């Protein structure tokens, strides 16, 4: 029986593990793939205090090492459900069941999908949700970015250094992105901005070749989808209070409506989602879990 099971090995979950172990609680951290969460998708972390500039995998590794040295068990397995029992909870993973007295959900977010029938067929064959991962594959080729927020403009800018041409497709006339980013893109000769444009379908024999729009079609070897993210893991247990966008509602101490279940990081309903807010959440949720266990 664990005192605390933390689900998710991003900065929120890893920080929660540090606080849990320092309070000497028997702690298991479940991570579905590799510790680091969204940090693993970036080459530049420049806004985390005391770390002037680093890449995501390095800061993730440093956090994971610290967590292991404190004696946290880390299991690489995907959590599929949490069930209430008499003594606490059972967390079921793809391969086993673990008993615990409390749970911290730190499952983060995942990229929002286009919702087109053809999307799955072209995933890994032209459709990408990570420009830093796949951008360089399309050196000298025409590519498209779909979205209108800051991340769409950052991706278009990044890709313009590699691709032959970047179409920035947005379904509204106006952008949510900061004005300075929009201006920069407008002045970039490699970026063609297409507003009031919707993606209707995708075409290609083996790989993506064409994007079918409401007002025509374009030839592109890749489509980078940058239309925001959605919370992950909010259905692990019934009875969580979710907001309109399905993020888990809690107070700032990470307490959910279910005693013994706490939440931390990007999956929590809040305004700013950064590494620094995730680590803060992790500390707060662990502290609440420790109080819960001690009382």
């Amino acid at each position, binding site marked *: 029986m664990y005192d605390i099971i933390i689900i998710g090995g991003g900065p929120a979950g890893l920080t929660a593990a540090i606080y849990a172990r320092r309070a000497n609680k028997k702690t298991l951290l479940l991570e579905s793939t590799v510790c680091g969460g969204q940090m693993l*998708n970036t080459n530049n972390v420049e806004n985390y205090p005391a770390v002037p500039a680093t890449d995501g995998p390095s800061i993730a590794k440093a956090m994971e090492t610290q967590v292991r040295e404190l004696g946290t068990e880390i299991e690489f397995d995907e959590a599929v459900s949490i069930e209430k029992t008499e003594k606490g909870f059972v967390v079921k993973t793809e391969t086993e069941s673990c008993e615990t007295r409390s749970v911290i959900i730190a499952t983060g977010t995942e990229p929002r999908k286009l919702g087109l029938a053809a999307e799955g067929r072209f995933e890994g064959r032209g459709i990408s949700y990570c420009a830093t991962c*796949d951008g360089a594959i399309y050196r000298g080729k025409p590519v498209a970015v779909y979205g209108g927020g800051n991340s769409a403009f950052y991706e278009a800018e990044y890709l313009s250094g590699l691709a032959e041409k970047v179409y920035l497709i947005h379904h509204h006339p106006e952008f949510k992105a900061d004005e300075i980013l929009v201006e920069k893109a407008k002045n970039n000769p490699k970026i063609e901005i297409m507003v009031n444009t919707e993606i209707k379908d995708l075409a290609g024999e083996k790989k993506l070749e064409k994007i079918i729009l409401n007002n025509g079609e374009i030839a592109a070897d890749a489509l980078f989808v940058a239309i925001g993210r959605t919370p992950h893991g909010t259905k692990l247990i019934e009875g969580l209070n979710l907001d309109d966008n399905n993020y888990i509602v809690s107070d700032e101490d990470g307490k959910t409506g279910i005693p013994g279940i706490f939440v931390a990081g990007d999956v929590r309903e809040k305004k700013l989602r950064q590494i620094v807010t995730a680590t803060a959440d992790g500390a707060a949720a662990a502290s609440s879990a420790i109080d819960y266990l001690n009382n």
Partner: protein
Amino acid sequence: MIEGTNENFEREVLNSEKPVLVDFNATWCPPCQALHPVLEELAGENQDIKIVTVDIDDQDILAEQYEISSIPCLVAFKDGEEIARSVGMKNKKQILKMLGA
């Protein structure tokens, strides 16, 4: 782990007696760097599988041939045939499952 090239791919992957996991990656891809230690551990722990890493910039012929368009891309081979493919992060248990091991 073995570094896969256009020259040794047939010998190390297609003609291998053990199931082979090929990790298509690149130095500039952050998730690829994060996945690397997992594959190293897996290779050290399992003598009955083989792991081959292919840098898609150095080995553009292989990348083209296997139509790699998102990385990290893990491709499992058995008896010279592709039996599974997955883009993105995976844990060890999931990788072993891809290899049927």
